[in-house]
């Protein structure tokens, strides 16, 4: 395990060590089945009679299959491979990802999603702002920058890998541009694929999107508008008035309300703490961390201090040992 980079005093060090040992012991018991994690040079148990296809991160050494990477052994029929933990994101079809536009190209946007190559979002694989289903014309192509610009943060779904790269799609109102918030990056293995990746935390007025690629968006809640019903004439005017508001006073009025901003920052710092400690990031754990911090009456920026990190680690160890006893 990579050493956690925190400045701790002696007691905090011991407490953190104890909590992590507790976590380790509980996880090693749970992981003793076939879904084992391996480190470099560990042998992978295989049944040679069935025939084995050596996959990524494996090596045949004197008739024995050994791992050349640290990670989790995955088996698909005959294929045996090792999925490395500390690696770039590997997309799977249907994953919800958050990405940043790196280029506006012919009929497509290229997005950085922390994959080994840029992902492609075709103009034809997203709903147009006016919501009408139709062929995309040359005019639409010219107006692509009015939908997404370079550096915009976008949420989309992985559609699949085609001959020219990884394709995304955004065929619903819930996908699209993300504004008024902050983007956090965590190692992708901390975010597991789950049923729900969009979270609207109503009590805080915050939207939280846990991208499978380790990009996490925390922002002010926006109502998913159904543009189809909306009066289409009013839209361009609205945009124009937005662009004209350059003066500082007007800008200040459009800032995120202070309570919402506090909640956004608190949630963001909860995510940061979990990522420092290397814990899986799920909505429940984030909420627990956030509630812990508010119950301790900590200032938001104090959450990144070492004392709180140790507390979270201890809490997590406690929680896991409890759930294990139940199960």
């Amino acid at each position, binding site marked *: 395990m990579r050493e956690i980079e925190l400045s701790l005093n002696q007691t905090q060090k011991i407490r953190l060590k104890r909590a992590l040992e507790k976590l380790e012991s509980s996880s090693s018991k749970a992981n003793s089945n076939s879904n084992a994690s391996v480190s470099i040079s560990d042998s992978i148990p295989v049944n040679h009679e069935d025939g084995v296809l050596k996959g990524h991160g494996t090596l045949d050494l004197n008739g024995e299959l050994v791992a050349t990477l640290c990670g989790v052994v995955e088996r698909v029929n005959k294929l045996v491979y090792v999925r490395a933990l500390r690696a770039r994101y590997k997309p799977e079809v249907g994953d919800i990802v958050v990405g940043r536009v790196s280029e506006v190209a012919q009929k497509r946007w290229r997005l950085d999603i922390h994959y080994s190559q840029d992902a492609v979002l075709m103009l034809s694989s997203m709903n147009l702002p006016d919501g009408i289903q139709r062929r995309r014309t040359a005019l639409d192509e010219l107006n692509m920058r009015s939908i997404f610009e370079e550096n915009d943060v976008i949420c989309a779904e992985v559609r699949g890998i085609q001959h020219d790269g990884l394709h995304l799609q955004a065929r619903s109102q819930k996908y699209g541009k*993300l504004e008024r918030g902050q983007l956090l990056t965590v190692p992708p293995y901390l975010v597991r694929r789950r049923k729900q990746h969009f979270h609207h935390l109503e009590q805080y007025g915050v939207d939280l999107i846990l991208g499978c690629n380790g990009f996490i968006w925390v922002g002010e809640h926006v109502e998913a508008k159904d543009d189809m019903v909306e009066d289409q004439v009013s839209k361009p005017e609205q945009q124009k008035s937005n662009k004209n508001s350059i003066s500082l006073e007007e800008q*200040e009025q459009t800032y995120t309300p202070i309570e919402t901003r506090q909640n956004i920052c608190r949630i963001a*710092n909860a995510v940061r703490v979990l990522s420092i400690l290397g814990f899986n990031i799920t909505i429940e754990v984030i909420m627990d961390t956030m509630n812990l911090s508010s119950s301790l009456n900590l200032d938001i920026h104090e959450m990144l201090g070492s004392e709180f990190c140790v507390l979270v680690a201890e809490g997590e160890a406690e929680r896991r040992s409890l759930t294990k006893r139940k199960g």
Partner: protein
Amino acid sequence: MVGLSLGEKHFIQGGIAQDIRSDGRKRLTYRPINVETGVIPQANGSARIRMGATDVISTVKAELGKPISLQPDKGKVSIYVDCSPTAAPMFEGRGGEELSTELSVALQRSLLGGKSGAGAGIDLSSLVVVEGKICWDLYIDCLVVCSDGNLLDALGAAIKAALSNTGIPRVQVAAGASGDEQPEVDISDEEFLQFDTSDIPVIVTLTKVGRHYIVDATTEEESQMSSAISISVNRKGHICGLTKRGGAGLDPSIVLDMISVAKHVSEQLMNKLDSEIAAAEAGEDES
């Protein structure tokens, strides 16, 4: 570094205006500072400072040399900064050179005082061994390992920590050298002299975003700045140096206001840094 979308820029500016920045800090709050000393064994003194993701290493190497004829009673100190390509892809090749020079010059201005040596954080006359003949040359080299904004403050703190970690060997001068002859010296392996680092200033950079200014800006926040002023303040509250970066101009009244804020902030920073350095030194002795 990656760009930011309009929405994110707006969010950062709004946060600064409302006094809650993206990581929950107030405008005048620093990130936690982590100090390690004695990280480079070959150097006479070294330190590593981490503030959030910003990570810098500073080393001090002392060599015997000859003082320049204009100032026979003073030693020499030079400061160089190197930006490692591991910190950002744009530092690759000669890309980091411009920033390195800018930082070196700013540090020299802030720490070494004027041409006459007045107002210097490091007492140059303490470096002299034999007046006019032998003095210590201090080479302070800094390396930026990871850059997440506020490099100058981190470098200044790293130099301060490295200097308090520095031990200069005691030098015995053989008697009997006369006239223009260079006297023979004997460098002790056991006895080291500590520096007096209490006069070394800390650098406080105030970054102006919108109408407000903040300390310890991250890279994202620095991308939104109009201008930044770095003020070095010593323990007595005296201003030792001042540098301005960024394109936009500043009103003199705002500059004066910023200086008074920097003085106030520097007190806290100085105390925090001193206790961190003491803790790091204590930790090093233990292990």
